[in-house]
Structures are given as C-alpha cells and as structure tokens.
C-alpha cells in the first residue's frame, strides 16, 4: 500500500482553468506513477497544453490542485520545478544564443557547476545528437533541431518527472524514432506525460492514454482498452468515436 503510494509522482485533482469566457479545463483528475508513460490525446484546443502548463506551474489553476512528488505546485513551486523536465509546446528557446551557451545557461540554473555541468552537457549532446550544431545560434537551426535543443534542455538534469508537449512534432522519421526510444529508455524510473496527435505513438511508447476534449476527460485507460472501444480494433477509429460522440452531445465549442 505505502510503496504504491510512494511511487505516485503526479497527482492532479479536480483541475479547472477558465480564461475569461473560455472554460479550457474542466474538473480534470488523474495521477501518474513512476514507470508510467501517459499519452495525453485530444483534438486541437482540447486543453492538453493548458493542463500541462498548470502541472509545471506556468499557469495557476482556477481551482484544483497539482501535487508533484509530494509538493503542491502552488505552495512549493521551486521544489516542483526542480523535479520536472518540461518541454513547452513549440519548444521555445533563446534564439540569439548558441546551442552550447543555451545548454550552459540551463545547466547553471539547474544547479550544475564547472566540470559537472560540462559532463551533463556532453552526455545530453551525445544522447540527442547535437554535436554538429553546438556552436550555431538557435535561431539559425532547422525546426527539428530547435525541437531537439528543447529536448536536451528538458532532460539535462535527469528529472524525475517529464512533461513534454508534442515532443515529436516536426521531427524527421529517424528522429521521431530516436525520441521514442529515448522516452522508452527513460520510462522505467520516471513518470512521463506526453501529448501527441500521432496515435501510433501511443501504441509504441505509452502505458496509458487519456483522451480529453473540450477540457473534459473522456477516456482513461491502457492503449489496448482504447483500441477495444472501436469495432475495427483501430486506435484512430477509437479516437474518432470517442471525441466526435462528445461533440455531438455537447456542441463544438469549449465555452458554452
């Protein structure tokens, strides 16, 4: 009982977010344990990014709580942020910096100094294959390389919890494969949430899937269970059935 409790890394309780008239996230609750890879699915504007922004402490929830490794994100933001590696949507980074100086900045903020920082940077650069572009300014990189720099920033401190908003968006097939293997490799000890629009990804790397639409959780289960909701045993079909059914019942818009 206790061991099970201890392994829970992220606990989201009754999370709600309202942007003026738009009710972006409605009463979302779930938890993620170490060793789990949660795939966060849903149509555009469903509230995936907004939920992730609240978990990582960038946005304050209108109501509800987020607890990461025992710390509440609103009362202990620094502790929570230290244990998370976060790749925001679009992987923003400082364009005028070179890849190396950007990673040095992140390493310094993450508390690594001197030789230790260089070791961390070396390791992550090898892992993500950034050797060729180390001296290049980030704004001159291709979209996929920018994404990879963001990825490096996310995992440089070997965080306990990983939250990645569309990590494979814009990558070439080889890199997609690399990132997926990387996530799988890290999955054993970490709690991971990824959002994606690529449903095969869910099959390939996720141990669990949540479908959210118009701010509400519509499905929470294993990829196998998700597939089983379709007669054709097809994951795309299952996604379509679950999300369109919801919209037919509740109308198109999130704010009503």
């Amino acid at each position, binding site marked *: 009982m206790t061991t099970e409790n201890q392994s829970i890394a992220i606990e989201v309780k009754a999370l709600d977010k309202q942007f003026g008239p738009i009710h972006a996230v409605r009463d979302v609750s779930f938890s993620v344990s170490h060793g789990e890879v949660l795939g966060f699915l849903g149509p555009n504007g469903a509230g995936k990014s907004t939920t992730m922004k609240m978990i*990582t402490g*960038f946005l304050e929830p209108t109501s509800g709580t987020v607890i990461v490794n025992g710390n509440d994100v609103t009362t202990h933001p*620094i502790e929570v942020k230290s244990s998370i590696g976060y790749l925001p949507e679009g992987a923003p980074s*400082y364009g*005028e910096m070179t890849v190396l100086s950007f990673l040095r*900045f992140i390493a310094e903020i993450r508390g690594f100094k001197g030789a230790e920082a260089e070791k961390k940077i070396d390791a992550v650069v090898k892992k993500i294959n950034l050797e060729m572009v180390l001296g290049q300014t980030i704004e001159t990189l291709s979209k996929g390389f920018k994404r990879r720099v963001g990825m490096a920033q996310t995992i440089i401190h070997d965080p306990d919890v990983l939250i990645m908003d569309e990590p494979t968006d814009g990558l070439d097939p080889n890199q997609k494969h690399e990132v997926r293997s990387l996530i799988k490799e890290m999955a054993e000890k970490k709690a991971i949430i990824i959002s994606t629009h690529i449903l095969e990804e869910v099959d390939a790397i996720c141990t669990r899937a949540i479908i959210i639409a118009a701010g509400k959780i519509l499905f929470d289960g294993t990829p196998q269970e998700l597939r089983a909701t379709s007669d054709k045993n097809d994951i795309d079909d299952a996604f379509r059935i679950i999300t369109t059914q919801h919209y037919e019942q509740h109308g198109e818009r999130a704010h009503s």
Partner: protein
Amino acid sequence: MKNISAIMKRELYGYFTTPVAYVFIVIFLFLTGIFTFYLGSFYERAQADLDPFFRFHPWLYLFLIPAIAMRLWSEERKSGTIELLMTLPISVSEAVIGKFLAAWCFTGIALALTFPIWITVNYLGEPDNTVIVASYLGSFLMAGGFLSIGSCISAITKSQVIAFVISVVICFLFVLSGFPLVLDFFQAWAPHALVDAIASFSFLTHFDSIKKGVIDFRDLVYFAILITFWLYATVVVIDSRKAS
C-alpha cells in the same frame, strides 16, 4: 544569488550577441556628444566642468532607456521563452532582479564609455572631479530608476511598441513632476503636503541635487525606494499573469 547571476549573464549575452548593444551605445555616445557640444555649448562656456554633459541625461534617458527596457519582458512573452524561464526552478523575483541588473549594468557600460569627455575636460582645465564622480553616480542611479519603470511596463504587454510608448509617458511624468506645469495641475485641488510629495518624486530634483557634488542620503534613498517599488510591481504583474 546564483540564479540571479545566471539570468544576468544570459541577458548580457543577449545584449552583446545582437546589434541592440552596439546600436544603443553608438547612439548614446553620439547624442551625448551632440548635446554637450552644440546644445550645451561646452567650449563656448569656457568652464571646466561637465554640466553641459550631464544636464541632458534625463532627456536622453527618457527615450533611450525605455528602448532598452521594452524588451525585458515583452520579448519573452512574444517569443514564448517566458514559459521556459518561468518553469525553471527560479523565483519570479530572481528573474526580475537578474534581468534588471543586466540592463542596468549595460547602461552603466554605455555611461562608462563616455570617459573621453572626462579626460578632455581634465586636459582643458581643472574641473572639480568629485562633482563629476557624483554626477556619474547620479546619472547611473537615474538610469536605474528609468529602467525599473520600463521593466514593469514591459511585463504588462507583449508588444514592445506599446511598452515603449507607455514607459516614455510614465518616465516623462517622473521627470516633469518637479515642474510647474504638473504641480499646478495638483495645486488646484490637492493638499499642500501632497504637492510637495509630488515634487519630490521628480528624477530631476534628485539628480540635480546629486549633480552639485553633495551626495545626500535622501537622494540615495529616493532612488533605492523607487527602484524597489517598480521591481516589486514587476513581480506582481508577472505573478498575476499566471492566473489570467
């Protein structure tokens, strides 16, 4: 402290790897030159002091400092890097202070690069160098005041243009609040103590006083409080954006 210095280093790196720093420094030096030698009649006065040089600093800063400050937060918001920055394990105040100190350091560098004029005046005559040192200090403190206002305004908006315009207007009020125009407006209805208080808000009042060569504790306190207040306001603005 460690986080503040990391942020500060990154910001300074940003200034000097983009044309921003060089454009600013060149324009600053060029304008101080013009003001000192033409408008201030540096030679014609035939006096060995730097008053014509320092006299125009408030007016130069009025436009140049908001141009530096406007990018402090607006750019982060626009490019989305604020999401990266604010999900790193640092506090909002560390980020605010780090960014402010970098910008302040940078204006300090620009100010320090005006040293040839100091050398010139020492070559031409025998100025009172303690007055000059005090004036440099006063100018630097005033730059900090302008910057702290600009920092807060740039935290409010994504648009650097809006940040610039609003900062100029507010800084203008802080410069002018010692002037009759502004005081008359308040004199009509406000109690006397308030009018005095408004006059003491002016950058000019305090800069002029330091510029005379006497560094009064009250002038230092004025700038310290002003900067602290606006930086605190910056933190409040950024915090409130989280909830929006």
